[in-house]
């Protein structure tokens, strides 16, 4: 008995010694404080728990996901029948286009946002002109400068194509709606259902976060010192996490960060101010009849929205996940590289900021080595390998010999390619 007691005492003392000496395993500048670790923890876990869009009756419905995938690559939705959603949101380019500003039927004025993790957002578009994903999916189809589609043509396509008609019936449990407007909204809801499945893989940052929470110093030490120094800068002096918060590294709201909002040849992009006006004007917002959540509990943000003078020139705080693969940057694609972005914040022009705008933005005056550290951290927010095409949608009951797989089409992702998880 005495022997057992002594043996356990030794084991306990050994454990205490190991625990007490644990911090020294990641000693010096790489030892995060408890407060820092708590803040790092708030950027996960990843992936986030999936959530169903209560405003979209076919959210999570396999047939709707399948139909949405099919329609995302469907050029017959466009006026010229040559472009589709995938023209700007290209599967091989992190679901954006790599251009400074979008190019649909005409030249756009804003950068095409990537679509990975889009289902987790509150507002959609750089100006948040949409409060739900299906409405955000509908606009570019109908916008004359983007796809130039129209409701009647889309409805005709759905009703006349046996495969689409069949997929629709599986998704919605009935034949395509005889009312074109409703049918158009349901097309957008199916496209949204597919986009909700776009979840990007875990990143080196996620591994670092999880290792810190486990207290796994050996795993923490495998991450480059520059990444850890950059993370500390991101949380601390940089104050980046004030807005780039949570697992998405975005608070989902809007800010003016001194990026010019002038549009050539003349004019300005009003940003959030214009977005709020568009949001309140559209019949497709969550306060409208197309919201499938009869409680309207999903409309809290829209119902309580308060327009402010400072909204002029504000743009959405973008997620920082997958940054390596989504250049160029900012709402107008004006910064070509991540280094340009960090330099922008380091030497921010305060004269460009609203007088009633964000007061925490001050030039950081980062040294070159600090810029390198911050870049190393920002790059850790992307998967190591470039993301390829999203996974194909789930198999469903065959429609006209398609065996439940999407029909081949020109702009679809290559067969068998999928995101590396």
């Amino acid at each position, binding site marked *: 008995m005495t022997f057992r007691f002594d043996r356990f005492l030794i084991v306990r003392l050994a454990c205490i010694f190991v625990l007490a000496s644990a911090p020294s395993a990641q000693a010096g500048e790489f030892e995060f404080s408890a407060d820092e670790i708590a803040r790092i923890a708030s950027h996960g876990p990843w992936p986030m728990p999936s959530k169903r869009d209560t405003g979209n009756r076919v959210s999570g419905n396999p047939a709707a996901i399948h139909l949405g995938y099919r329609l995302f690559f469907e050029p017959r939705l466009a006026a010229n029948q040559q472009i589709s959603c995938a023209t700007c949101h290209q599967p091989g380019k992190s679901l954006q286009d790599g251009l400074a500003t979008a190019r649909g039927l005409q030249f756009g004025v804003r950068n095409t946002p990537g679509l990975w993790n889009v289902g987790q957002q509150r507002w959609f578009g750089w100006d948040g002109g949409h409060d739900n994903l299906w409405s955000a999916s509908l606009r570019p189809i109908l916008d004359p400068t983007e796809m130039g589609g129209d409701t009647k043509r889309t409805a005709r396509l759905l009703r006349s194509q046996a495969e689409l008609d069949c997929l629709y019936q599986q998704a919605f449990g009935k034949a395509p709606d005889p009312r074109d407007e409703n049918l158009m909204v349901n097309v957008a809801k199916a496209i949204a259902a597919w986009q909700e499945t776009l979840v990007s893989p875990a990143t080196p940052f996620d591994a670092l976060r999880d290792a810190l929470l486990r207290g796994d110093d050996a795993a923490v030490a495998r991450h480059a010192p520059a990444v850890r120094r950059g993370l500390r800068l991101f949380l601390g002096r940089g104050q980046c996490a*004030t807005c780039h918060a949570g697992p998405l590294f975005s608070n989902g709201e809007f800010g003016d960060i001194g990026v010019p909002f002038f549009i050539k040849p003349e004019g300005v992009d009003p940003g959030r101010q214009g977005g709020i006006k568009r949001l309140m004007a559209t019949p497709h917002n969550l306060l409208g009849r197309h919201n499938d959540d009869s409680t309207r509990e999903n409309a809290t943000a829209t119902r*309580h929205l308060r327009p402010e003078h400072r909204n002029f020139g504000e743009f959405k705080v973008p997620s920082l996940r997958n940054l390596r693969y989504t250049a160029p940057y900012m709402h107008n694609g004006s910064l070509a590289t991540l280094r340009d972005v960090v330099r922008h914040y380091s030497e921010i022009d305060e004269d460009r900021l609203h007088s009633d705008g964000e007061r925490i933005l001050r030039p950081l005056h980062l040294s070159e080595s600090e810029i390198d550290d911050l870049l190393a951290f920002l790059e850790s927010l992307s998967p190591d390998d470039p993301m390829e095409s999203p996974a194909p949608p789930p198999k469903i009951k065959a429609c006209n010999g398609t065996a439940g797989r999407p029909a081949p089409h020109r702009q679809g992702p290559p067969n068998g390619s999928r995101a590396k998880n």
Partner: protein
Amino acid sequence: MKSRRLPAREAESPADRVRHGVLHGLMPLFVLGASCAIAQATCPPNEADGSLLKRDSLQLAWRPLLQGDLPIAPAAIPMAKHFALTVQLCDGSAASKAVLKKVAATMPEHRHGMNYQPRISSLGDGRFRVEGLMFHMSGRWQIEFEVLNGKDVLRLLHDVQIR
């Protein structure tokens, strides 16, 4: 305008009938429970009413609620998520007549407020519910309650650190 007809009782399944029967049977208890809740709302506020602020004879207790009316401490208000508040006012009399006129929140260091406009509804007996708040950034927020107490307009402030 068409009126909606309630489903005929005969069309209910046996399970529905049992459920409705139980609900009808329990209804008086629900009413009693709600009455008790209101009765418990009498002044002065207690811990269940939340954090306490005082100004002269006025006491204000407030408690944040997350989605699903989950009560939390002010320090646990999450960033960039909508939340609601319950507010209990006590003006020193047995039946408080103080009125909550406005709830706002600002980040003094940032010189801006919320992006959302809260709405106040009175629940009676000095109790109020405030919907639609969101602290969209980390840092110090100052929440302001404007109360009409008799002829006086009182402002009660409270700092909350959002992480």
